[in-house]
């Protein structure tokens, strides 16, 4: 058996067993009209739920599931990119200049543990429209982990790299470009992965409470309007799958030659 096969076979087997179990546990109640509304859907019903979400197009050109996914992904990307744009330079500055770190770190550490959910009322009051609201929420939930990771990355650069560079007369912008930034990239990337994961979790909550579209809203609508658990479960599975996809996107960067060294197994 090829090693590739081996990698696939265990998770597939586990999934098959779980789906079978799920079917056995939910199938019995499928024909009980008394609890039809509140019972958990069977796997097949969830498949039909997917079909429903992929065929209904309420006033839009794209199917519901697609347009919601696009909306959520766009918001996360917009907020995350803004957070990177500000958070990475800020973190690098904090990591390099002890004074900047002393001045800003208490503030960052105070804001960082506040649940992004706690920002939702502020977002609602500050922004009227869905997009700025959700982008703001993603921004505040991702900027602190990004900044913290970038600052720590610079602080953890081994002294020999800095000394070596100084020895060859490398300083200023050149030192930053050739040594400081590449030396901190692997750790920054780990921070970005974490932040993107947080952003994807937060967007669902934000849409459920404060936004009128997106995957979070799709779940909320399925509950409020139609009361269909099959649609809720289908949407949740979609959220998980997109989450894997976003993470894989960032992970691909870990294989770039200039970054890969930071992840090699340590001797």
């Amino acid at each position, binding site marked *: 058996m090829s090693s590739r096969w081996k990698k696939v076979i265990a998770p597939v087997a586990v999934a098959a067993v779980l789906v079978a179990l799920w079917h056995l546990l939910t199938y019995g109640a499928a024909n009980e009209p008394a609890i039809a509304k509140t019972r958990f859907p069977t796997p097949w019903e969830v498949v039909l739920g997917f079909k429903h979400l992929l065929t209904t197009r309420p006033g839009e050109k794209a199917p519901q599931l697609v347009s919601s996914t696009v909306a959520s992904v766009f918001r996360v990307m917009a907020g995350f990119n803004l957070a990177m744009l500000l958070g990475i330079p800020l973190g690098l500055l904090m990591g390099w200049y002890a004074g900047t770190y002393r001045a800003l770190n208490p503030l960052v550490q105070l804001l960082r543990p506040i649940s992004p959910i706690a920002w939702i009322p502020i977002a609602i009051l500050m922004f009227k429209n869905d997009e700025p609201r959700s982008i703001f929420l993603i921004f505040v939930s991702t900027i602190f982990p990004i900044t913290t990771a970038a600052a720590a990355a610079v602080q953890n650069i081994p002294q020999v790299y800095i000394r070596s560079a100084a020895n060859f007369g490398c300083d200023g912008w*050149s030192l930053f470009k050739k040594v400081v930034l590449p030396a901190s990239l692997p750790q920054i990337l780990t921070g970005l992965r974490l932040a993107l994961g947080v952003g994807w979790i937060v967007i669902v909550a934000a849409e459920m409470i404060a936004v009128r579209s997106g995957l979070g809203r799709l779940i909320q609508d399925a509950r409020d309007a139609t009361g269909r658990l099959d649609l809720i479960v289908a949407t949740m599975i979609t959220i998980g799958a997109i989450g894997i996809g976003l993470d894989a996107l960032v992970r691909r960067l870990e294989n770039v030659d200039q970054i890969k060294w930071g992840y090699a197994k340590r001797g």
Partner: protein
Amino acid sequence: MRGAQKTFSEPGKPAIEVLSGVDLDVAEHEFVCLLGPSGCGKSTLLNMCAGFESIDGGTIAIDGEPVMGPDPRRVFVFQEYAIFPWMSVWDNIAFGLQGRSDAQRHEIARHYIELVGLEGFERAYPRELSGGMKQRVGVARALAVNPDILYMDEPFGALDSLTRLNLRSQLIQIWRREKKTILFVTHDIDEATQLGQRVVVMSARPARIKTIVDLSGLAYPRDIDSAEYIQARDRLFEEMGVSTRV
């Protein structure tokens, strides 16, 4: 360089006195080993010579000019692999050559890659190299800027003994060909006996110079089976206060 002069003395930090009044003169093109027990402060001395650490008393001067900070004319080779893991072998070796024309950079990098025997590995990244190869990149990177002095801080300390022996003989060849002044820190008596024209034996912390053993009578390449070699080595064992019997 006309006989580099280094005189160093430190009245003592309030906390720990690492070096107490070290006086040493090193001549141009000389190979000097600083030999001492681990943690005695010989690395600190080397770091001060390189300008990485400040001098708290006394002076270190090269060609009469006090050391004020790191300088490409004197390059440090670290024990830890200080070559940059995000750069290829080629880019590492050419690192110190900024400001030269592309053609010049190319020619110099080419020359030192060949000198340390890394042809064919130009595009490789450090993680793909063995420890010995990494350290050869470190030496090539240092030599590429054509420094007057090489400071080597236990550069082969992390390698296995065969690789170490190999790299020492390569280092001797390079030193004789390129005519550098080398200050080499080690705690390994055999290493010091094989490499140094003079061996500066240092005491435990706070480090002082115990004695300076002149090995310039031993011709290179040194025969580690010869009676003279063994005599010289035993002398160092004695100076270090270590028995030659295990």
